[in-house]
């Protein structure tokens, strides 16, 4: 069987589901963050597959921007986690139930 767009999209969908599993099931902020990264990468894979099968470079450019924005997002998010940890001595969502510090 030849590999088509469908197979790539199914891999991408499964990858997205694993990312979501990490965000929903795990309670550690860092691992939830890794789940977010997995979901972003699933979107990247789908975009690259669309770009390849439609013979159009726009998808790849979008992935380029997504990677850049994800890097910025990781930097800010991890800085927030560290700042939160300094105040509350915990990186667990179950301990972070109040809006006030």
């Amino acid at each position: 069987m030849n590999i088509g767009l469908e197979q790539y999209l199914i891999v991408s969908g499964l990858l997205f589901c694993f990312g979501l599993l990490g965000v929903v099931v795990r309670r550690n902020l860092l691992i939830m963050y890794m789940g977010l990264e997995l979901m972003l990468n699933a979107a990247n894979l789908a975009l690259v597959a669309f770009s390849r099968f439609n013979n159009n470079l726009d998808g790849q450019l979008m992935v380029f921007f997504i990677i850049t924005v994800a890097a910025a997002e990781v930097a800010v998010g991890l800085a927030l986690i560290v700042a939160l940890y300094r105040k509350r001595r915990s990186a667990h969502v179950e301990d972070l139930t109040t809006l006030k510090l």
Partner: protein
Amino acid sequence: MENALFYIFAALTLLFAFLCVANPFSRNPVTSAMFLVLTMISLAGLFVLLQAFFLAAVQILVYAGAVMVLFLFVIMLLDIKEEERRRFNRFAIALGGVSVIGLGFILFSTIRESKVGAGLKLVAVKGSDTAALGKALFTQYLLPFEIVSVLLLVAMVGVILLSKKDLK
């Protein structure tokens, strides 16, 4: 050959991704981070199969290089022993698993039903298209490119401000 490579890389990507978020043997965040690196690398393999060589290189440089180093630094700053002492809430796991399986089923059946790749034929690409990518980036996509550079600057300033000792 290409089909076999696709199956190998896809299986590796999914296996490592699963081990990253739900490793049955270890709940250490460092293990998760290492599996995330492996996921990124096998995903870069899939990008190569899709003829996106430049993106594969960027994926390894930015994700496996920069982002993961950042993750590991932060893991070292936090208390990782605490994670292993925690107990899981069974009800939350069951509910989360069911909702994720539901979403997966919806995605799978949508992709199957829509026959999205039916009319698309693969066109052979000669060599690398990095030059075309660069040209599009600096002509058609110049404005988003500049905005992204400003965004990186904003993120940098924000991170420096956030990591100051006394947040006011």
